[in-house]
Each structure stands twice: as structure tokens, then as C-alpha cells.
């Protein structure tokens, strides 16, 4: 029942809609930009001197489906992940600061149910948004670049791993929202933990096993296979379970 309220809230407060639209735009814009960037540059080169035109033409490669996915990968990592953190940072903290959590928890709902409803609803929304992004990315790329450079099987695998990575990010956001009292501090903590997990791969020896590596473009190009990321996947799953379990445990002890 509370899960349904969460879904309705994400729709009515437009947060979920914004997330879905941004993901959809990322899926549409990446192949379009890849296709149109050389055209735009060509138009710009019309006014350039023959020497400049020669240099730029040499640098520019012909657009391909591979570049379209590379563009998506870049855009998603810079915009998509930030949007997920911003949209869901207040998921618990907002209810604590506004006292809506204290009120509803005097009804017949357990705190575990309260937290898990929020988590599952955020996962559902991220999944739907990711499907929109993936669908538009695959369809537009197929439509604009008929080069057969990419095996769709590996694209699907990449999106499956990206979904797992987003669930991991959601548990970080949930945890931050539980341990803080305001949306601002929850957003700050979520970014802090996210940055730490993005710095960890540069640590010698252990860095290569960190969860952030499961969001890996090498899967699409087949430079990496699922076996190479097995340890990262296991660590990501362990981390997300720890964050989720801690969120429930901490919230169960909190005074509201």
C-alpha cells in the first residue's frame, strides 16, 4: 500500500517524470548529436580557410554506432547519475524534516516497510527511465547508423550492468537520506559517498575491483567481458546490501 503511495508521489510531484524525461532525452540526443555534430562542423568549415578545413577534416572521423554509444556513456555518467542522486536524495530526509514520516508511522506501518517501499519504488522508476533511455538509444542508433559495428547482445548486457550500478547508487542515496535530517545534507552526503566510490578505483591493487567499474563501456566494445567484472559485481551487490540493510537498521532505531 505504501509502495503505491510512493509511486503516485513520484508522478504527482513530477520528480519521477523529470527523471524519465531526462533519461529519454539522453537516449535520443546521444545518437542525434553523434550524427549531427560532423554535419554542423561541415557547415562551419564552409567559411574556413582550405588549410583549416583540411586539418579539421583529418581530425573528424565518420560517425558510427560505436560513437553514439560512447556519447551516451559520457552523457549518462555526467548527467544521468547526478539526476538520480538529486531526485532521490530527499526520499527519507524530506519526510523527516517535514514530520510527515512521524505522522504516518503512527499508523499501522512498520519502519522496515516504510524504507523498503521507498527503495523499491525508486528502483522501479529508475528501471522504467532506463528502459526509455535504452530503447531510444538503441532505436535511434539503429535508425541513424546502419553499420553493424555493435552487437545488440552486448548493449543489453551493458544496460543490465548499468541498472545494477544504478541500484547501488540508489542504496547510497537512501542511506544518506536516512542518516541526515534535511534534503541538503542528504544530497551532500550522497555526493560525498559517490565521489569516494569513484576515487577508489585509482587505489593500487584493490581499485580494479571497485563497484563503479561495472558501469563499463568496454562491455559494449567487447574489450571487457562479464567474467572480467565478476569480482566488481559481487562487491557491488555486497555494498548495496550493506547500504540497504544499514538504512533499515538505522531508521528502525531513530527517534522521530
Amino acid at each position, binding site marked *: *500500500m505504501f509502495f503505491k*503511495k510512493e509511486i503516485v508521489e513520484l508522478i504527482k510531484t513530477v520528480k519521477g517524470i523529470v527523471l524519465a524525461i531526462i533519461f529519454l532525452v539522453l537516449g535520443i540526443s546521444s545518437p542525434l548529436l553523434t550524427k549531427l555534430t560532423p554535419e554542423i562542423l561541415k557547415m562551419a568549415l564552409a567559411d574556413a580557410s582550405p588549410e583549416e578545413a583540411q586539418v579539421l577534416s583529418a581530425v573528424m572521423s565518420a560517425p558510427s554506432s560505436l560513437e553514439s554509444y560512447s556519447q551516451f556513456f559520457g552523457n549518462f555518467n555526467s548527467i544521468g547519475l547526478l539526476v538520480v542522486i538529486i531526485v532521490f536524495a530527499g526520499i527519507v530526509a524530506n519526510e523527516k524534516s*517535514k514530520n*510527515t514520516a*512521524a505522522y*504516518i508511522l503512527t499508523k*499501522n506501518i512498520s519502519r522496515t516497510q516504510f524504507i523498503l517501499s521507498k527503495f523499491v519504488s525508486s528502483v522501479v522508476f529508475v528501471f522504467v527511465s532506463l528502459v526509455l533511455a535504452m530503447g531510444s538509444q538503441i532505436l535511434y542508433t539503429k535508425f541513424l547508423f546502419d553499420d553493424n559495428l555493435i552487437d545488440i547482445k552486448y548493449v543489453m548486457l551493458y544496460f543490465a550492468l548499468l541498472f545494477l550500478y544504478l541500484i547501488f547508487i540508489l542504496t547510497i542515496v537512501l542511506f544518506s537520506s536516512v542518516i541526515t535530517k534535511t534534503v541538503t545534507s542528504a544530497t551532500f552526503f550522497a555526493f560525498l559517498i559517490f565521489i569516494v566510490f569513484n576515487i577508489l578505483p585509482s587505489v593500487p591493487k584493490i581499485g580494479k575491483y571497485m563497484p563503479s567499474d561495472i558501469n563499463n563501456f568496454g562491455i559494449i566494445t567487447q574489450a571487457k567481458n562479464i567474467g572480467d567484472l565478476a569480482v566488481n559485481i559481487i562487491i557491488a551487490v555486497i555494498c548495496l546490501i550493506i547500504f540497504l540493510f544499514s538504512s533499515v537498521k538505522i531508521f528502525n532505531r531513530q*527517534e*522521530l
Partner: protein
Amino acid sequence: MNDALKLVNLTKIFSTKSINNNKTENKIIAVNNLNLTIPHGSVYGFLGRNGAGKTTTLKMITGLSKPTDGEIYIYGNKIEFGKPASYKNIGFLPDVPEFYSFMTAREYLFLCGRLHKMSDNDIKNKIREIFELINFDKKRLKNKISTFSRGMKQKLGIAVALINSPDLIMLDEPTSALDPIGRKETINIINSLRGKYTVVFSTHILNDVERVCDRIALIEKGSLILDGSINDIKSKYSGLHSVLNVEIPANNKLILDKFLEAIKEFDFISYINSEEDENIKLSFKTSDRKKAGEILPKMIYENGLSLIKFEFEDANLEDIFISATSSIVSQEKEAVI
């Protein structure tokens, strides 16, 4: 039937770190060994000054705060922190109820009803019944809660508290944030709950208590200092701390001074003030109503004065509240000195 609510040695201690020294832990005793029994069917006023521990007590009863020590029973069932099944027989209205503003009143009531595992049909019937009881305009059901005034939100909060037909309704300062009309409406609603529910109503507005409650508990610094029916408490306090009004003819100032001087030898009577118009009106405070009733008229006649009026003024709740809470504060000051 069991007592509606029973608090046994209920204690809540908050730990705070000292600002000057992080290593020092300060302890604030918000609720101190509170024992209280609230009988079924009563409208119970839970009184205390701001910061006396009322809201902390209600939060422990409604499962929002974990007691440091002690036990809470609702109709014989023990309340356990974090286990909503143990406090599902309570309807709770916080001082400022915060609803999901994106919802309509109907959606919020249905959410609460469904959380209580009620069928949609039962929820509909219950809403109809409650709205008649609290005189809530049904047309507002489809309005977003964000458009409601404070008074409307308070009414909706009462409807939410009643949706699952609990036996015990807890209202935390339901009138303190309202204008006089909203206050009157809320008091009328509480009155209409009488006989159907046991109502515990925390407040520091004593007028409201006198209008609606039949029993009260007064807490100060987290401890219970008074508990019982309003009439019993008033008569007990009237015996201990009564105001006595005496009216005598305005004829002889010297005799009057002599009489007032003679009064000073009795420690259970103290002179408060006098007013003079046609007659002289004297006010005394006494801690022993019976003795004062015997001694004063006798002294008046012995001093050659005649008596026009002699009456005890009943203590009101405000006098009782001030007298009881200030005696605790002064005891604490003496202990510190």
C-alpha cells in the same frame, strides 16, 4: 474492561553532548518515572507547562520514541517501540499534523485506512460516519490538503485519528495553534467524542480543559504532580489553598487595623488586599479552610466588627496549575541552594 492506558515507571532521558566539551555527556530527564492510569471512557486532560514532557510522553505512547525505562500498556497490551501492531489501537493527532500535500483529503484517509488493512467499503462508510460526527464538509474530500487552512487540517487530523475506530484517541495540543473559532470547533468535536472513545488531550490551555475534560493529570519536569477528577482536585485544593472574601461595614479604621494585626498570629491565614467603597472588602488566603471558617468570624465579632459577607472562593484550574507547578520549581531551587 481494562484501563485504557497505563504508564508504569515511564522514563525518557535524552543525552546531549556539552557544547564546550564534546567529551562531557549531559543528560536531560524529559520524563521521570511516570506512573499513570487512564480509565476507559474518560476525556483526560494531560497538562503541563511547555517543556514539561507532555509531547515526549505522547511520542513514546505512539511508538515514535523509545522509552529509556518503564512500560506502556494500551488496554492491557504492551506497547513496543517499532512494532506498529502494538499501538494500532491508538488514534493520534500531533500538535501540527503534517500530511502529504500532493494528496487530497480522500486519498490520505484511504491511505491510512488501507494501512490499517480496512476494505475500501469500510473506509467509505467510516469517512461518512466521521464527517457527520465532526461536521466536516464532504465536498472538501476532493480538495488537495495543501489548500486547507490550519483549522481544516486539524479537523482532517481528527478524522485520520478516528479512521480505524481505535479505542484510545491521543490529541497533542489540538487547540494551541488555532484561532478562537477553530479552538471552539475543536473543543466541540472533542466533546462529541465523549462516550464513544477514551480521549487523552494534552494542553496547557486550561480553559479548554475545564470545558471538556472530566479527569486531569498534571506533569512538571517529567513527573506526575496531580492526577484525578477535576472536581476532586478542585475540592482538595480548595481545602488547601482557598481564597476567602470578607465584607464588613466601613465604620472604624482603627478597629480594622487591630483586627488585621491580630490575624497575623495565625500562620494558616494571610491577608491579601482590601478594597473600600460602601463597605470594606477584604481578601485572605488560607491553607486550612476549616480552621479559617471557625476562627475568622469569631475574631470579627470579638473585635467589634459586624459581618456582611463571608465566602470561600473555589480554586480554579489556573490557581491549581500555578500553585502546583511553582511549588515544584521552588522545591528544586531550595535543593540547589
